[in-house]
């Protein structure tokens, strides 16, 4: 079990996580999700038990990057196991760490129904219905699944669109 956790943790790049920690609150305030903010920016991290440390680490990074929150809003970071996806009920954005397909699909379905922006560490989840991920090439670039984003009727800031690439679903 421990070995598996270490193995999974090793799959997460620290630099990429640093980027995600900066990106996550900003995607909320630079999209129509900003309208859903009540008192705080709520970001939910979905993880398998094996990746809990990674999720906590991400939370720490966000706290570190935004000690005073963003704009006038404090940042509430919620950690949630994939088995307890309902914990992300009030979140404007959910960050999905790796998991099995069943968890992933269930979480994506829940997030779609709940209108939360789904950002995944693994770019492969875009194919399954995640909204945003990072493309790791020569440079790191945000990748947007415009199909799922538009289905959720989420509007992104124009600037986000300009710095991002659009994911095109492969024809089956």
């Amino acid at each position, binding site marked *: 079990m421990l070995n598996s956790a270490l193995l999974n943790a090793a799959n997460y790049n620290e630099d990429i996580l*640093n*980027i995600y920690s*900066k*990106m996550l*609150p*900003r995607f909320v*305030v*630079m999209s129509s999700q900003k309208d859903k903010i009540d008192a705080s920016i709520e970001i939910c991290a979905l993880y398998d038990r094996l990746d809990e440390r990674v999720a906590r680490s991400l939370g720490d990074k966000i706290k570190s990057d935004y000690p005073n929150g*963003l*704009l006038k809003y404090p940042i509430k970071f919620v950690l949630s196991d994939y088995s307890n996806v309902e914990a992300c009920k009030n979140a404007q954005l959910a960050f999905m760490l790796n998991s099995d397909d069943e968890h992933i699909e269930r979480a994506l379905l829940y997030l779609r129904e709940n209108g939360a922006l789904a950002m995944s560490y693994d770019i492969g989840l875009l194919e399954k219905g995640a909204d945003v991920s990072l493309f790791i090439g*020569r*440079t*790191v*670039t*945000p990748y947007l699944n415009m199909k799922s984003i538009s289905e959720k009727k989420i509007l992104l*800031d124009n*600037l*986000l669109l*300009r*710095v991002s690439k659009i994911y095109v679903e492969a024809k089956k």
Partner: protein
Amino acid sequence: MIRKIREFSRKVSIEFKVVVGIVLFTLAMGSIDRYQLSHNLLSQFFEAKKSKNLLLVNMIAPILGLNISFGLDDANSEYLDYIVKENPYVTLIQLKNTQQRIIYENKSDEWNPTRENWDESAKKDINFCDKNIVDPSSNSIIGSVRLHFSDKDFQELQSANRLLTLNLIAITLASLSLFVIMIKREFRHLKELNESVLSYDPKLNNFSLTKSNRSDEVGVIQNAIVSMVEKIGLYTHILDETNLSLEGKVVERTKELVEANEKLKALSVTDELTGLANRRYFGKYLEKTWELAKRKSVNVSLVMCDIDYFKKVNDSYGHQMGDEVLRRVAAALNESLKRNTDFVARYGGEEFVIVMYEGSLDDATLLCQRVQENLKKCQDLAFEGVKIDPVTMSFGISCVVPDKDARYESAIKKADEALYKAKENGRNRIIGC
């Protein structure tokens, strides 16, 4: 100064003034036009360049800001590389963080901050663009970007502008040259016209120009002058003929006048029938002689003579014969005078008078005797086939030395009295006193 300029201006020909005026006007208009064009062109160019540069900076700054806020430094580098590649006029891009540390820099080969034109361009706030990078979410400054744009486009514009100016100058000069040549040709024609008019002599009729086919002002002037010259020639010819005729008439009339004057003069002092001096002239002559004799205290002899029985001649042979007798008596009297100072005149009818200046009574008597002799000589003469009876004359002489109070009328009276005595004593006699 103004006076001198005016005097100089009067000396300069209109042709020169026209050419100088056109050249100055063209240069002034060309210069104003070029200045305006260049000014507008450069202003528009600078504004366009400024807008273009600002547009680029304003476009990239938010993206850079977002990438910085995301921590995507590599994305920024890639993005700025792309910007440099797509914008060849960008010679420098510097991206700095809030601590002014350069986190990205890209310099092209053209980047040379020591060149003077960079400074000049920088002053114009055209080629350099500095902009703060703002976090799109929090609006806080998270860095700055500096761009420098190449001056190459400005140099190219200036070069094109200079080329255009040179072309315009060349075209203007060429056009001006053509125009000046045309003007000179027109003025040459006017000069020829002027020379022809100046050298024209109506008597020689040497005007060489003929009527022109041109319909412009020069043609109109030439045709007017040619018409005028033709009229002058015609009137000159008529005038010459009239003058010649008048000159002949004047010569003829002058000759007639001279002759008439001479005749009148002669008539005024001469007796028409006998050709001797008349009584009027005798009076003047005697008055002068009398005064001279008075001054010199010399004798003046006065002879009054009358043809004896002259009435009988008239009655017997008619007046024409009488006239002929008078003419012959006059000739005889004239022949008898020996001295230049002796003077004979017809006193009236058949009566004659002789004045002898410085002539004594004896001299006068001798003269009378010579007259009698001469009268005898012409007794054989006939008139128109009719033989004339011999005529004699009676003579009365008065000889005096006129004193201060003496008057010539008294001498005449004495001579007349002596003549009367001669008539009384039987005629054909000489009585002196």
